[in-house]
């Protein structure tokens, strides 16, 4: 059930040059959030009209954490929240990932898109499956080491790559995919910039692949039709019918 909860900041840590891991106290939302679902965070105390949507990065019985990449006014304001400050959060929202018991999965994440894959990786392992992950960032300073560390506990093989600059592996996620037998997996899960997702379509659209999409949202609650995208079943709301869609159903040329 979707609820509105006033959540206090437990911690707000800078984890990369432009990313923060923010942990909020939450019982109700944290308790029911499923992999791939998101929350809508009120930024009204920072002077913003609309809430901002973020994937649920991780949960415990009393907390909810988000990985927030600073891209504008709202995310910068959230990055500056101090311990004890309270914000109103609505969630959990949207339809998340589906999990196949015992399957081998490949997670592909770009930038802050890795956030939506954390609960998923835990759930896959809990369901007796295993997962490998390939994460791409633009440059080394953008790699959130703490978060990569979290994933290294659930992902069997974790590859981190950067588009440019000095790092053990350079290149994008497509380059890394080309180096492995990516056919061996039962399921694929992708979240990241639209350009990355689109590049993956020729390789993965005929497989069991789920993608998590983003759209500018007004309500996030399924009522305004601000976030509609085209699919093979007509217009679908990213906030309500998604954010997770099968790669096959999305009309990629319209995105």
């Amino acid at each position, binding site marked *: *059930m*979707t*609820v*509105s909860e006033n959540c206090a900041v437990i911690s707000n840590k800078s984890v990369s040059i432009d990313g923060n891991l923010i942990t909020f106290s939450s019982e109700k939302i944290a308790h029911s959030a499923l992999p791939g679902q998101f929350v809508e965070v*009120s930024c*009204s105390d920072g*002077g*913003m*009209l*609309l*809430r901002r949507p973020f994937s649920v990065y991780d949960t415990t019985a009393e907390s909810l954490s988000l990985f927030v990449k600073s891209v504008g006014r709202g995310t910068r304001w959230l990055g500056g929240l101090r311990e004890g400050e309270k914000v*109103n959060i*609505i969630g959990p*929202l949207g339809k998340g990932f589906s999990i196949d018991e015992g399957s081998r999965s490949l997670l592909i994440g770009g930038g802050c898109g890795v956030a939506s894959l954390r609960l998923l990786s835990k759930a896959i392992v809990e369901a007796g499956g295993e997962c490998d992950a390939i994460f791409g960032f633009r440059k080394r300073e953008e790699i959130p080491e703490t978060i990569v560390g979290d994933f290294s506990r659930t992902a069997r093989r974790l590859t981190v790559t950067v588009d440019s600059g000095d790092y053990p592996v350079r290149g994008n996620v497509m380059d890394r995919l080309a180096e492995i037998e990516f056919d061996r997996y039962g399921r694929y899960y992708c979240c990241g910039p639209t350009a990355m997702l689109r590049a993956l379509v020729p390789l993965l659209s005929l497989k069991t692949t789920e993608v998590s999409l983003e*759209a*500018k*949202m*007004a*309500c996030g*609650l*399924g*009522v*305004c*039709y*601000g*976030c*509609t*995208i085209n699919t093979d079943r*007509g*217009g679908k*709301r990213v906030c*309500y019918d998604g954010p997770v869609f099968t790669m096959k159903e999305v009309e990629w040329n*319209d*995105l």
Partner: protein
Amino acid sequence: MICDHSVELGAIGSLASPVMISSGTFGVAKPYMELLRGQPVGAVVTKTITLNPKAGNPQPRIYEGPCYLINSIGLENQGVDRFVDFYNDEYGEIGFPVIVSISGNSVDEFVTIARKLNSIDGLLGLELNLSCPNVDGEGLAFGSVPERIGEVVKACGSCSRFPLIAKLSPFQAIDDSFALAAARAGAAAISLINTVPAMVLDIHRFRPATGALSGGMSGPAVKPIALKMIYEISRSVDIPVIGMGGIASGEDAIEFLMAGARAISIGTMNMVDPSLPGQIMGKIAGFMERHDIENLPEISRRFHL
């Protein structure tokens, strides 16, 4: 003192609360309904439905500025036939009185939709979204002449079994001619304002910032404009006026009631926080108590220059 929080909306009847939810910002999606459950909502207005399904405008459909929202949804909806077929499944148990918003490109289209809606039982009314920019046979934007508005209201009135609300755009509320035309043609109430036609450009890409050329502006920035229009129009017509445009708090709602609105409607800010109806009613109740006001119309009667 016992304060009466109900409102009489003329031929529409009485609402348990003066707070309504505006067209395009109410829907039966589960997360929203879960958040809205138990809120003191007098009536909800559906998203505008049209004769045929509409796919709506390309992305992006939402632009947020300081204190305002521009939307270019493009009336995405499934069309009246599907709306009627699924009405009971979708709206049967929502627990709030329902007003259906309709729009057409011609008088005939409005009439056809209104007829089809007669098959639904228990609607509180129909709201005619008269902001249609389409051009009719005579080359006039449909909503640009009061006479045409009068025609639509009259034609729908003679075929619908529900009372009608004429919803005006800010351009139709610049003076009282459209409101008077609607009232004379038999509208039960006037609602205003719809969104303000507006545009934003993306200067780096030499194109509009929304998928469509332009959109409609709503939110707190339009509030003072809406308030003035409601003040003037509520003094011209002798049917109730439902006031909306940028209401974000109980104080805002009281301002609208004081300006002359019989009921108020919330849109943009209720999407951001669906507990707004309760917050507004709490403020109104406290205000009435403090000022010894027994009923809602008394709020505007106390207003003076």
